[in-house]
């Protein structure tokens, strides 16, 4: 974006004294008398001052450039969401409304911070033969997009609010808003049912304690295999997911584990980093738990969630939701179970459509076959 130009300007400003033949060294002519470290430190300070001056100039250039590029654009506001875009048939308002609903649902009052993060959108003609403008710092989209797709694009390009590393590590990724949470919950339902891990299946069968284990909120002990309930699971995990770690001292344990030696499996699991052992449920499942906690906690829930990054995850979620973690987990399970997807791909009206087409084609046969002999 503007980085290339910024670097160019900074380089030019910083190198001007050299081009003029000036030396950046400011010290007594007899440099032999100054210690080398001191001389170098002074030189570094000088360079730093020049670099800061160059960045300031580059910022000015950037803002002038941006102002010129977006001079003909309009700014749209939906809630705290700001979108700058050129006039076009794009269903921007509709998409922005969807995006804002999602942001507001996730962040609550904290969503006001998006005021300072406007989105720049350039709508262009879908006809590829028409020349397109050069876009600096914006999102280029064709104006034949539907609102749903546009909303997905806007969300994908929107920089989410920063969260602490502990939350990111527990989630397994950043906390991003979702346009279609019902689809996400359906996927988590399928995951719960089809997962090979006993703790996750027990969670589906209403064992809330195992839900906490499966969601990596509670741990029976510090052993990495605490959520691997039986020898078969330990062997499958080791053989399917951890074969790349079987080297050196772990190779023997890996080999014995794959040959049905459970003790060897335990030894192997304890010898590798905990983070290498795959967790029973995916980040999507943990994301849905966060969603439930935030919904329970109201508009201030997100603020409470990120307020104490050093607390255990279970405590943070409970505080965000305003209820005990058991209740949060129970509520989450109920929501997921209620999100069971429709399984057989035949809509209710599919029967009538099939019959109608059958009648149509039969009628074509009746019509087409009358005059045959020629």
């Amino acid at each position, binding site marked *: 974006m503007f980085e290339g130009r910024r670097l160019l300007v900074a380089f030019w400003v910083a190198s001007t004294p050299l081009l003029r033949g000036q030396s950046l060294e400011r010290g007594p002519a007899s440099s032999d008398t100054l210690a080398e470290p001191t001389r170098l430190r002074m030189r570094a300070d000088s360079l730093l001052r020049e670099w800061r001056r160059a960045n300031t100039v580059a910022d000015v250039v950037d803002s002038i450039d941006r102002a010129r590029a977006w001079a003909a654009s309009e700014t749209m506001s939906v809630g705290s969401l700001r979108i700058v875009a050129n006039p076009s048939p794009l269903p921007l308002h509709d998409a922005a409304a969807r995006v804002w609903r999602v942001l507001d649902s996730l962040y609550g009052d904290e969503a006001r911070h998006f005021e300072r993060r406007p989105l720049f959108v350039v709508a262009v003609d879908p006809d590829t033969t028409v020349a397109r403008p050069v876009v600096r710092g914006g999102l280029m989209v064709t104006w034949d997009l539907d609102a749903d797709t546009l909303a997905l694009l806007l969300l994908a390009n929107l920089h989410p609010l920063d969260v602490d590393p502990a939350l990111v590590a527990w989630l397994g990724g950043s906390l991003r808003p979702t346009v279609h949470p019902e689809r996400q919950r359906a996927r988590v339902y399928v995951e719960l049912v089809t997962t090979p891990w006993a703790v996750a299946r027990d969670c589906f069968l209403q064992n809330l304690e195992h839900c906490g284990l499966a969601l990596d909120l509670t741990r029976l002990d510090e052993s990495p295999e605490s959520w691997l309930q039986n020898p078969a699971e330990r062997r499958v995990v080791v053989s399917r997911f951890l074969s790349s770690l079987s080297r050196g001292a772990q190779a023997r344990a890996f080999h014995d584990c794959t040959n049905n030696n459970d003790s060897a499996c335990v030894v192997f699991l304890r010898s590798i980093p905990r983070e290498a052992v795959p967790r029973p449920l995916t980040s999507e499942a943990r994301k849905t738990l966060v969603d439930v906690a935030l919904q329970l906690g109201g508009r201030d829930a997100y603020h409470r969630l990120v307020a104490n990054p050093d607390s255990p995850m279970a405590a943070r979620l409970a505080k965000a939701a305003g209820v005990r973690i058991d209740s949060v987990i129970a509520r989450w399970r109920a929501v997921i179970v209620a999100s069971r997807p429709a399984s057989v791909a035949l809509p209710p009206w599919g029967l009538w459509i099939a019959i109608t087409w059958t009648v149509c084609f039969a009628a074509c046969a009746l019509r087409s076959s009358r*005059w045959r002999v020629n």
Partner: protein
Amino acid sequence: MTHAVAIQHLHYRAGKRFAIPDLTLTVPTGAIYGFLGPNGSGKTTTIRLMLGMLRPAGGTITVLGHGVPNDVPRALARIGYVPEQPHVDPTLTIDETMRFHAAFFSTWDWPWARQLAATFALDGGQPFGRLSKGEKGKLLMLLALAQRPELLVLDEPTEGLDPVVRRDLLAAIIEYVSQREATVFISSHLIHELERFCDWVAVMDDGRLAAEVPMERFKNSVKRLRIANPPRTPGDTPFVLLARESTNGRAETWIVRDWAPAMAAYFERTGSSLDDIIDLDLEEAFVEVLRAFRARNR
């Protein structure tokens, strides 16, 4: 109803090469109507138009009092049809074919059908596809006769069959007609076969009707006349002059139709001399009629 089949100003076109421009013919009820014509003259096309298998471009067709093609199912229920080519499913046995056919015709006569099968020496368990040509012809005739039709439409039923089979088939037709006052419409180019039992004959050529007369009249009234000093222009003749051919400059040979002995007076009036009257058999008469027809329409 006096006519089993009445076709009025029938017009039909098949592609660019063949057309029936304007056909009118009637088949009297109870007649055995022979439909003659060379190959490609339009006999099978006419039959298919009669049976509603082809859609005419103009004209009217009435079969047994039913308009064709609008009311053709009712007409077909009273018609026994033997097509030019075998049209039965070759995978069905003779018995299966008879059962299939019987299901569609309420007038089907099973005892009569079995009797015919015995007469024709047909083995009921044989698949149709494995029958000889003669046996296929017999089965098709059986199917047409056993439904006790009022009108038999036979499209070259004895084509390619040996004399014994032909005799058997014709005997069956004659027997059926003698039992019941049925009308027979039979097309063929085997003229001598039709001569024996048809009482009407029509000659078709290139989509047009060249002649339609009672058989006796066709057989007996077409003559070859040798004439000396023939008149330059025939003028108004009491007979139908089909063709005239010069033999040696002063004599001519005339082919005439509808000849009667009293017509010899015509030549006396014109100063000619009628030297000889030669009877033509049916085949010769057919050829001369066709030749004259083609010459007129050239």
